[in-house]
């Protein structure tokens, strides 16, 4: 039986709902949000009819289904008896990769492969700069040299090495 104690995510009121399956609940909310956003953007696209579908027909139909799925997920998450917690979000790794890759994408066309790679590698291996600096320098250097040789020299991919 579900515990009846109100927890985070439960609503105040005479009946206390307990969100047992938190990932399911949040994923349902996510789907709902995406669905609403999609419909908002695609509102202006010509809809057409079932036999002559305009560009907006399919996306909006999909968004409706997605919204339904989101709604069903949230309901299921509250009513299920299986408890599930949210695992810890790996903030630092996830964001270090994201920032590194973003920087790589921005730097690559203007500053070349070597500098972009350097930025990326520094971002994703930042911890080792302090703890094992020599290892960091060696690994970074080896990777940059290797990828420059492999992709640009050997494979002839149109990438500038330097700005």
């Amino acid at each position, binding site marked *: 039986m579900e515990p009846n104690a109100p927890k985070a995510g439960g609503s105040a009121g005479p009946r206390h709902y307990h969100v047992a*399956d938190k*990932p*399911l609940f949040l*994923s349902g909310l*996510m*789907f709902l949000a995406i669905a609403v956003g*999609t419909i908002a953007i*695609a509102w202006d696209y010509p809809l057409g*009819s*079932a*036999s002559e*579908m*305009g*560009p*907006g*027909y*399919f*996306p909006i139909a*999909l*968004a409706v289904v*997605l919204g339904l*799925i*989101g709604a*069903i*997920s949230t309901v*299921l998450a509250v009513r299920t008896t299986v408890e*599930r917690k*949210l695992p*810890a*979000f*790996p903030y*630092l*790794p*996830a*964001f270090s*990769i*994201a920032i*590194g*890759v*973003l920087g*790589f*994408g*921005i730097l*690559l*066309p203007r500053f070349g492969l070597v500098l972009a*790679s350097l930025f*990326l*590698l520094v971002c*994703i*291996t930042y911890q*080792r700069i302090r703890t094992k600096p020599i290892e960091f320098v060696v*690994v*970074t250097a080896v*990777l940059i040299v290797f*990828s420059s040789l492999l*992709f640009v020299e050997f*494979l002839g*991919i*149109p*990438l500038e090495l330097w700005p």
Partner: protein
Amino acid sequence: MSVFDQLAMGFNIALTLDNLGYCLLGSAIGTMVGVLPGISPVTTIAMLLPITFKIPAVSAMIMLAGIYYGAHHAGSTTAIMLNMPGEPSSVVICMDGHPMARQGRAGVALCIAAIGSFFASCVGIIVITLFSPVLSEAGLLFGAPEYAALVAVALMTASVMSTGHAVTTFGMAILGLLIGTVGTDVGTGLERFTFSVPDLADGVDFVSVAVGVFAFAEVAQHMGSPDRRKSFAVRFSELFPRLADLKQAFPAILRGTGLGAALGILPGTGPLVASFASYALERQIAKDKSRFGKGAIEGVAGPESADNAAAMTHFIPMLGLGIPAGPAMAMMLGALTIQGVTPGPQLMTNHPDLFWGVVASMWIGNVMLLVLNLPMIGVWIKFLSIPYRFLYPGIILFCCIGVYSVRNSAFDVLLAAALGLFGVLARQLNCSPAPLVLGLVLGPIFEENFRRSMTLSNGDPMIFFTHPISAVLLVLSVAFVVTMSVSGVRKRKQDIVAVADDAP
């Protein structure tokens, strides 16, 4: 031309020095990828996509295929030796393979696994050879409703079979379809969801999505957890299986092969599902169920065979119909498209050299893997001692270069970064990324055929049921979905996964 003539032509192509080299390279990389946890074939293919631009399409496919089935051969090695599956589909093998290793029977387990892989792959290749032409000819008869129904089947099966709540995985598939609508609408030329970004006019590049959602998210998860280096006492007191072991294992190998071959063809399922199903089957029909979990040889032979048979037959929908059965196949489809080869049922008729060259190379690769997996095991185990922190910077760097070089687009790289974050979020929320990529790749096909069907039928959705093939497909898939949900197979699979996760 008979099958043998075509195979002969294929061997002609596969046995050139170049292609032998690519086959060996693919198998070796695949073995490495299979042994090392944290890298998957999908990620590896994404990394190596730029290399495929410079070589002929056949050679590219030979290498990529080698990586794929090589990884599935080798995944069991670490599962047995170190209780760490190199591939998700090898998780079940930990459960009986590692106890066998601790009992001193590691050699036996590895041998049986290698024999099972070899046998199952051979059968799988035969199924490909016989079945793909049939499928391709049937596919040429497919009209719009049939294609739409087939894609629907693929997505529904994928939803039911992936990890996570069925509703969630279906949602991910729909989301994938939705992302697939980004770009220029084919019928009217109107740009959808592009926000005036020119790079999006051609749609979202699936390599960015795949790399972001698989590679970046995987690395982010792994970076978070500390390196778990365990060394269990693995004794090699028995190197080769006894006759009794072989007699015990062989029926399991046969059953696993059959199960895997069948499940691999279905889009959405694949080696992962096949190995789980085989383990469940073996445990179910065993006379003494208590042996399982303590070193039952059927628990290694069955799943390993199923895994490899499915890995082979997984190619059939892609080669015969142009429909990817899973994300790895989607990557290979992408590689083919970039090379200028249009996937679809006409692939076999337009590019017979490609198809038969790849099939012939599978035979060769299979033999190579027998050598790579048994005598050279020590080498691969040494690879495992490389700490993850040396591997992941290279992985990410190569992936970034790979994504960029697909369309020379920096935007794709930025997109991959964003999708990496999304991928991590998805994993936190128990949303499996595979249906998303499948939906993305299949979206345009689905929409085009769905629209055309509706136009043909003047808006009547019953066209999908008045066309016999489409009706059969839809009914079968609904029956499949219902059976899976009701029979508790899904729950049993989740249970097995839960046990395997807790084991170390």
